[in-house]
Every structure is written in structure tokens, then in C-alpha cells.
């Protein structure tokens, strides 16, 4: 088969699959317009010039230094022929590159206070920027959001979303739709109260703000003991998804705060009414008003730091012969959830990694069936709890391929010992009320694994085991490929059907974020941001030390193309 035939065949096939299995809006086209590739966070690109037969010919087209050394977590977005990348440490810079050759069009260097670093829990990261209507939106660790002119990098407006001094920070890009730019914020380790906030793209005016935790007098506030809701966490530090047809905005919420649960619930598996809504939950908001439309709590009365923030991936799945509007989430708590994204009803929940804190999810109630031994209590250790608090999966994004119908999940294989502790709340200070030892590998001789997961059959199809945790996020393409990186700096291209590694290139420093791909002037490129993880390995003691030793810290964007 010639290349053209192959390309045609592949695109006919994928077009058919797209029609059959997914809404047309879940597509990135020839650019990479937003963090997750599309509103559905699929990280699937329909580009197929680079495919399983030629991926071995990838070579570096251009590369640039990002100028900072903290964990690099930005998804480079590509709009037209421009690429926008934010760096770690603030961000220290936002760059606008010519996506073809890396020429710097402009550089934005925000004015940041010197003390923001002490109120950021887990690394001075920035996961990238958002683009809409000629503007680039940047969120910052000092909890500000600014709009830049996409042509010049000039600041158009700037707002303080929340006060960073009490432990708020913004690490992820906002979601942009209609005339809104919507952001959440971090702080679940500092006793904040989470919210989602929408601003007018043109003026920076606040349009709506919805707290994730109901205040006194509001429905659901009685799920908290006393005043604990005020410092109850439920932060919104990762990205949202959006369904334009339903006009629903999806956001996950973090752990309940503090980690130690005796402050806010019964400190037992019999938590009764004290579930701590809406922490560790998937939420759906009306896109225009921010009104909460539905909520599903993954981990009631959380004491394991099982944030439910992981990206909601939207797809229309064929379940039992019916096309179903689904929302998929590989949760920190180790279960892969499929919900009906219209109403939040649970369709399935299956462990995608080794889970021992719960025996399963009761499909009638939607609640975990806990093993009480694995629930830490005040001054009582729960030993060997799996997964550990990094979760079965953390923020490093998964990808849903419309071509294979599989989800590619970067997973962890770690366990922990954890106990509740007494601790006073101090604004702006870590508020964990917990002691833990996460330096525990689960069995099998590996610490992370890329898992190809069938969300319909609810089973793993293949896996690639890695000897270090913090494997990078994943992208899939219509070229039959899956791309991901690891903390040694290896970027890999894998056959999406079989898991066979087809190409590897070492960029010299660890890769956390998924690559992106785009087409300019008939040529497909693959871009990756690299810069080894720096903060979070501390939680892991000796295992963490191995991660730090695996590659030096760095800050790079590297772009690949096919050799002629």
C-alpha cells in the first residue's frame, strides 16, 4: 500500500470510528488548541502522517531552553503557526514560538512576589496556557490570572483570583468557551475551600463563582462536622472539560482537608452523614451560570488524599448496544469510573491498578466498599494501603484514542502507611494532620505502568512497565501511535494496538507532560516539554531519590519531524 493509500485508508477508518464512537467536537484538527487537545480532554489527534511504519524516522526539528529548572509540566498549545508555552517557577516566562522553526515571537515575564514558593505544595509548576479570540490566558502561582495579546504578549488585564498568602496557587490552565475564561485553584494541603471562577474574556470581570463545599445553611453542609467545612479543601487545581452540546462544564475536586479525617468526620468507615461534600468528587456545572447540575463523590470522607481532580475525558461510548454520553475518569483512588455525563449516574467502576483500601464500588449506592483496616485514624496507622496518595493515576494525563477505543493511562504502582495526627490550622501553612510513609513499592518489580484500558470491556489490554514512578502523560494519534515520556528523559512512540515500542529518543531530562502534535504546511510535528519532576519525589523517600537521580533537572521544548 502506498503512503497515500495508507493515509486514506486510515482516515476513512478513523472518520468512521469518530462518527460511530464519538462526537465530532472531540477533535484537535491540525493544531493543538487547548490543554487536553480538545474540550473532551482526549489528547487524541486525527493527524496520521507520522504512523507506525515511519515513526522510526523521527528526528529533532528544533529545540529551545525554557530557562527554569523546576518541574516542567506545560502542554505546548499550537494555534495557527504559533506555539505558546509557559515555564515553571511562576511561570517565570510564557513564550510564543514560531511552531515551524522555534523563533521567539515574544516572551512574557510576569512580575511575581518573592515569597510565593512557600505556599505551593508540590512543585513550582505551570501546566500551560489557554487561547481564545486573539488572547492568551495565563494562570500563576501567586493566584493571579492575566490575559495577554496573542500577537504581542502585552498584558491586557490581570485579576487576583484568590489570595496566595493563605495557600492558594494556580497551576493549571483555564478552560475557555463562549466569552468566558474559567479557572480553579490549588490549596487542598493548606486548608482552603475550593471554588470554580468564571471571568469575562474581554474585561477580566468575575461572572460567577461556585464553591465546591456548601456553606452553612446550604444543602450538603451537614456532611461536615462543625466548622470543618471552612478549611475542608475540595480545591480545583487541575483542568476542566466542557461539553458544548449539553453546555456542561466538568471539574473534579481535591482531597478533603486536612488529610487526617478526625477533624471533619467520624474517623471511621462508618462515616454516616459526614461524607464531606463535595470533596474528592466529580462536579458538573451549568456553563453559563456556574450552577451545580450534578455531583458524584468518588471517595466519601477521604483520608487518603485521593483527590478526584484527574481530567474527565468525554466520549460517546457504545455500552450494551447504546451510544452513551460518557465521562471517563481514572481516579486517584484506583478505580476507573464511567459516568453518564448528562446526569452523573454511575455506569461502571473497575480497579485499573491494584486496590486494597476498598473491595469495590457498590453500583447501587456508588460508594466504595471499604476495608476498615486500611482507613487511617487519629494516631492509628493503616499499613500497606494501595494505591498510595499519588493514586493509581495522578494529574499526568491519559489519552482516549478514537481509533482503537482504548484509554492509555499512566499509572503508579505504590503503596503507603498513613496515620492521622493532631495539628492546628495556621493560614498559609501546610495543614495535613497526617503522618505517612510512601516509600513503598507495590509487588511486581515495577513502579509505574502505561496501561491500555478498554473502557467498555472494563479490562486492561496491554501494559508497559517502568522502573520509576512519575511516568509522563500520554498522547494518541490516528497514526496508530501512543507517545509518552519518563523521568530518564526517554520519549517513546508505541504501537497503540500492541504496546510495542517503536521509537525512543532521550531528551536529557525527565518528561512529565504528554507531547502534542500539529501540522503546518503539510508537515506533521510532535512537540514535548521536558524538565524532570522536582518537588513530589520528596514524599517518596528512597524511591524519590532514585527519581531525582534518573536525570538532571531541566527546561526544554523539543520538536520532532520526519527525516526526509
Amino acid at each position, binding site marked *: 500500500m502506498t503512503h497515500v493509500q495508507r493515509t486514506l485508508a486510515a482516515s476513512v477508518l478513523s472518520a468512521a470510528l469518530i462518527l460511530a464512537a464519538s462526537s465530532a467536537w472531540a477533535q484537535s484538527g491540525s493544531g493543538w488548541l487547548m490543554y487536553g487537545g480538545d474540550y473532551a480532554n482526549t489528547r487524541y489527534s486525527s493527524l496520521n502522517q507520522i504512523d507506525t511504519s515511519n515513526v522510526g524516522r523521527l528526528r529533532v526539528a528544533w529545540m529551545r531552553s525554557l530557562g527554569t529548572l523546576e518541574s516542567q509540566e506545560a502542554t505546548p498549545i499550537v494555534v495557527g503557526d504559533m506555539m505558546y508555552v509557559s515555564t515553571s517557577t511562576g511561570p517565570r516566562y510564557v513564550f510564543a514560538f514560531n511552531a515551524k522553526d522555534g523563533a521567539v515571537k515574544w516572551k512574557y515575564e510576569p512580575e511575581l512576589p518573592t515569597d510565593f514558593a512557600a505556599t505551593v505544595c508540590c512543585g513550582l509548576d505551570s501546566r500551560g496556557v489557554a487561547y481564545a479570540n486573539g488572547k492568551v490566558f495565563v494562570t500563576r502561582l501567586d493566584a493571579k490570572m492575566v490575559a495577554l495579546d496573542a500577537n504581542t504578549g502585552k498584558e491586557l488585564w490581570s485579576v487576583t483570583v484568590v489570595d496566595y498568602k493563605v495557600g492558594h496557587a494556580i497551576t493549571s490552565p483555564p478552560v475557555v468557551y463562549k466569552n468566558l475564561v474559567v479557572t480553579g485553584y490549588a490549596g487542598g494541603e493548606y486548608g482552603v475551600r475550593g471554588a470554580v471562577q468564571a471571568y469575562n474574556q474581554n474585561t477580566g470581570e468575575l461572572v460567577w463563582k461556585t464553591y465546591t463545599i456548601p456553606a452553612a445553611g446550604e444543602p450538603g453542609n451537614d456532611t461536615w462536622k462543625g466548622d470543618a467545612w471552612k478549611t475542608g479543601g475540595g480545591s480545583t487545581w487541575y483542568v476542566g472539560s466542557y461539553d458544548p452540546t449539553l453546555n456542561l462544564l466538568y471539574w473534579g475536586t481535591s482531597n478533603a482537608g486536612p488529610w487526617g479525617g478526625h477533624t471533619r468526620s467520624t474517623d471511621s468507615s462508618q462515616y454516616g452523614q459526614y461524607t464531606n461534600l463535595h470533596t474528592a468528587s466529580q462536579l458538573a456545572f451549568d456553563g453559563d451560570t456556574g450552577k451545580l447540575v450534578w455531583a458524584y463523590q468518588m471517595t466519601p470522607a477521604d483520608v487518603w488524599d485521593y483527590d478526584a481532580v484527574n481530567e474527565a475525558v468525554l466520549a460517546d461510548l457504545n455500552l450494551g448496544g447504546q451510544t452513551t454520553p460518557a465521562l471517563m475518569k481514572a481516579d486517584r483512588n484506583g478505580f476507573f469510573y464511567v459516568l453518564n455525563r448528562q446526569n452523573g449516574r454511575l455506569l461502571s467502576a473497575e480497579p485499573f491498578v491494584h486496590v486494597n483500601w476498598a473491595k469495590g464500588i457498590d453500583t447501587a449506592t456508588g460508594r466504595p466498599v471499604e476495608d476498615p483496616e486500611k482507613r487511617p485514624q487519629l494516631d492509628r496507622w493503616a499499613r500497606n494501603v494501595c494505591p498510595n496518595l499519588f493514586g493509581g493515576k495522578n494529574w499526568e494525563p491519559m489519552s482516549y484514542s478514537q481509533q482503537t477505543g482504548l484509554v492509555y493511562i499512566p499509572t503508579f504502582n505504590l503503596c503507603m502507611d498513613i496515620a492521622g495526627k493532631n495539628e492546628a490550622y495556621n493560614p498559609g501553612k501546610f495543614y495535613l494532620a497526617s503522618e505517612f510513609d510512601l516509600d513503598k513499592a507495590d509487588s511486581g518489580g515495577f513502579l509505574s505502568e502505561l496501561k491500555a484500558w478498554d473502557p467498555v470491556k472494563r479490562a486492561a489490554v496491554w501494559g508497559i512497565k517502568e522502573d520509576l514512578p512519575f511516568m509522563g502523560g500520554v498522547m494518541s494519534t490516528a497514526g496508530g501511535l501512543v507517545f509518552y515520556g519518563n523521568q530518564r528523559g526517554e520519549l517513546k512512540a508505541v504501537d497503540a494496538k500492541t504496546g510495542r515500542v517503536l521509537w525512543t529518543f532521550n531528551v536529557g531530562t525527565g518528561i512529565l507532560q504528554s507531547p502534542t502534535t500539529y501540522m503546518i504546511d503539510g508537515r506533521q510535528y510532535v512537540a514535548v516539554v521536558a524538565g524532570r519532576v522536582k518537588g513530589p*519525589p520528596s514524599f517518596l523517600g528512597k524511591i524519590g531519590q532514585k527519581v531525582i537521580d534518573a536525570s538532571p533537572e531541566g527546561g526544554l521544548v523539543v520538536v520532532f519531524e520526519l527525516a526526509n
Partner: protein
Amino acid sequence: MSWRRALSLHAGALAAVLCLAAPTADAQNPAGPIANPFEGRADVIDEGRSLFNQYCAHCHGTNAHQGERPRDLRRLKLRYGSQAPRIFYEAVSNGRLEKGMPVWKSVLGEDMLWRIFTFLETVQTPP
């Protein structure tokens, strides 16, 4: 001179009593000796480790295992020799905000900080 001996020069019984009784005295008099009142006390090590794992480990590593050299508190002795207690005390009291090290003065009592230090003494990397 070993680190321990260097410490014990400052850490006489009188200094220990002064530290416990008047914890701010050293802070007010930076020229005065800053010493660990629990120097050599094996009975506070476990509690020190526990406090360390609760308050410091997420940045400095579980049980102080840390690969990032500037955050590796097992190297205080290598790095600062006999000045280690003073540097420790100043770093935890005042923080190093621009680097991301919080201020602990208002959060943990001196007593707790020195228990943590006593644990750290047991895991120092030999020269």
C-alpha cells in the same frame, strides 16, 4: 573535632536549661550560642522522626531521604560542620521564603524543632 564534640562544647547543662527556660534568648542575642538542648538524648529520636515526617518530609524526604542536594538535611554536618545547629535554627525560624522554605517559628515550638534536629543528627552523612 567531631561534630558531636563541637556541639557539646556549647551544649552544657546550663545552655540546655537556658534554651528550654528562655527560648527566645538566643534569637534576641544572635552572638550567643545556639545549641540543641536534647543533644545526645536517644529517647527523643523517635518522636523527632515522627515530627519530621509529619511536618517536613513532603519537602525534605521521608526519613530525610532526599535526592535534591540543597534540600538534603542529612548533609547539614558536611555542609556546615559545627555551625549546623545555628544554621538549622535560623533556617527553620525565619524560613527561606524565596526558595520555598516556610517559616516555622509560629507553628512549631522550639522544643519540637530541636527534637527534629536530634533525629536529623542520627542520619547525618559521614564525611
